């Protein structure tokens, strides 16, 4: 497994990043974790619909997104808020989406990120199509798709991997193997030793990387992105990580796992090892941490405030977004339908 930073903050190899870049990655992870914590709390207060926390997976997501160019395509999942945000999806729209508002999917022009996929497996092939189109039009834009270990069981994973390799599309497949598909452990989902090895079935490079090591992920995804951009086709990256929280706020992990793994993985926390690394280099102190956290908090609070200030969609808005022009039936609904009492 490819890894560069040990859990204690020591490094295995020279890191290809400046100290400032390391600090920026750390700051991003802190901001992401703040968002995650805040979202869990808001959901408990009934201010968000079900929420899928990514605690423990910050390195995989921030590291991957940091390897992308601004206008690359991203097709990721309900758990990938950190990845999407770092790739350009504004927090406020992610939050708006989680309040249960379709307008959360309306990213600004120039941001090429699909709304988080709720179906497991269906979105990987979209990244193939997106990047295929870019290849055909001669642009050097690529697409990254992020998905879980569970998604690799879907037939759509197979078709996406196959199309990407057959047409050599500039696609990066990032699997965050976080140990579970809801309650079903990765070890039972498949009999292959790793997920990375599945790339062989498509003649595609596959690599396994420590998903809690933000630099290792960044380096691996950067390599895959370069291959793709250079016309050398798709790759699969398995980022081995762990979902520290429940599957979603509706889930109770005690039904299917005892706490022992959680304890083990807590020692491998993706933020802590970078903090230690920075501390070793004299680039971290409590003040900076406090500053980071309070800035992040303010940012997220502001995003929440904005999202919560958006008036709910009207009846007409609900019906006007199905087609470019509403169908005759929708026009009738608009005329005769009684808007309900919210």
């Amino acid at each position, binding site marked *: 497994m490819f890894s560069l930073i040990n859990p204690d903050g020591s490094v295995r190899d020279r890191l290809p990043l400046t100290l400032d870049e390391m600090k920026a990655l750390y700051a991003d992870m802190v901001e992401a974790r703040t968002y995650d914590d805040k979202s869990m709390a808001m959901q408990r207060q009934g201010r968000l619909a079900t929420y899928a926390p990514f605690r423990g997976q910050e390195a995989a997501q921030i590291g991957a997104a940091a390897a992308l160019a601004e206008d690359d395509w991203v097709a990721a999942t309900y758990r990938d808020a950190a990845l999407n945000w770092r790739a350009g999806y504004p927090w406020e729209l992610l939050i708006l989406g989680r309040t249960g508002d379709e307008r959360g999917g309306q990213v600004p022009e120039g941001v090429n990120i699909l709304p988080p996929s709720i*179906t*497991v497996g269906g979105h990987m092939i979209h990244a193939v199509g997106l990047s295929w189109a870019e290849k055909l039009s001669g642009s050097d834009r690529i697409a990254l798709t992020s998905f879980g270990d569970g998604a690799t*069981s879907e037939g*759509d994973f197979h078709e996406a991997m196959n199309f990407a390799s057959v047409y050599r599309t500039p696609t990066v497949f990032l699997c965050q193997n976080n140990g579970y598909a809801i309650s079903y452990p990765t070890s039972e989902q498949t009999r292959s030793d790793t997920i990375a090895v599945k790339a062989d079935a498509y003649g595609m490079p596959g690599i396994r990387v420590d998903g809690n090591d933000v630099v290792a992920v960044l380096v691996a995804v950067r390599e895959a992105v370069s291959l793709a951009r250079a016309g050398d086709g798709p790759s699969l990256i398995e980022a081995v990580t762990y979902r520290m929280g429940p599957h979603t706020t509706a889930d109770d992990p005690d*039904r299917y796992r005892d706490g022992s793994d959680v304890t083990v993985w807590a020692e491998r926390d993706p933020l802590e090892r970078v903090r230690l690394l920075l501390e070793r280099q004299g680039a971290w102190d409590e003040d900076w941490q406090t500053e980071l956290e309070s800035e992040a908090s303010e940012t997220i609070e502001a995003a929440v405030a904005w999202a919560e200030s958006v008036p709910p*969609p009207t009846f007409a808005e*609900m019906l006007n977004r199905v087609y470019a022009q509403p169908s005759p039936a929708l026009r009738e609904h608009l005329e005769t339908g009684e808007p*309900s009492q919210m």
Partner: protein
Amino acid sequence: MPEVNLAQAINGALDTALRNDPRVVLLGEDIGRAGGVFRITDGLRASHGPDRVFDTPVAESGIVGAAFGMAVAGMHPIAELQFLGFSYPAYDQIINHVARIRNRTNHRFSAPMVIRIPYGGGIGAAEHHSESTEAIYAHIPGIKVVVPSTPADARGLLLAAVEDPDPVIFLEPIRLYRAIREDVPEAVDRVEIGPVRVERSGDDITLISWGAMMKETRAAAGALAEDGYSVEVIDVRTLAPLDRDGIVASVEKTGRAVIIHEAPLTGGFGGEIAATITERALYSLLAPIKRVTGWDTVFPLKRSEAHYLPSVDRIVSAAHETLEV
């Protein structure tokens, strides 16, 4: 099993089926250790063992296809798909294989199996979690489509489905899982798949619905009764095979009908019912049939959900328009 809700009634029926028939096995995503995302299979793996209750990979086509093979080999598998919106990857297996094996082998092989699927909106869920696409199943020859709306029907129809020689899609109304409690004696064994249930008798108008929308339909019937109307309420319960006689008999009596469903209007199963009434009871009709349905849009997210779901008010006012003709 006195005073259970719909979720508990299904859990109990599954337990009974596993106990009574060694050919019954359960398979689906998270149904084992976790007891299912709605806890419908809670405790069943513990009490019947991991060789009767299987957690599966996230692969709906695989789940249905494997259950199909098991059924052909003589078992009575009960597969769970986590939400109706995630049943589409299995649609090919259902329509092209499950529904057809009897026909293509002239009865030599069959697929006695049940596919349980939670469906419908009303809980502010994420995309794809609120679907009500029963019409795409009810159109397919070779399968049966059952939608209970009460704990007793849930138990009785599920036990009948498990014993049915043909495959049954069993749709479970999510927002009724824990909404109603009723006394369901264990002795209530089977409810015949097919006949509608006349839930309330009346002479002025027939309200026709099924599954989750029965809640609003009942409330609307109550409101109309308070306005002095005599309301008949039909719970269709089985969309396929459809009990046309049961529906037509009621409308012949009342002369007026409102059909209520959660799915979008166009191509919804209400069209079939309205068409049936027109074909067979045209001269009894005292007013145009009305359909109160979801709008022709994707089921919306939480903040718009109340705009979408047919409300008691919409049903009542459609009934009034019908009654005032």
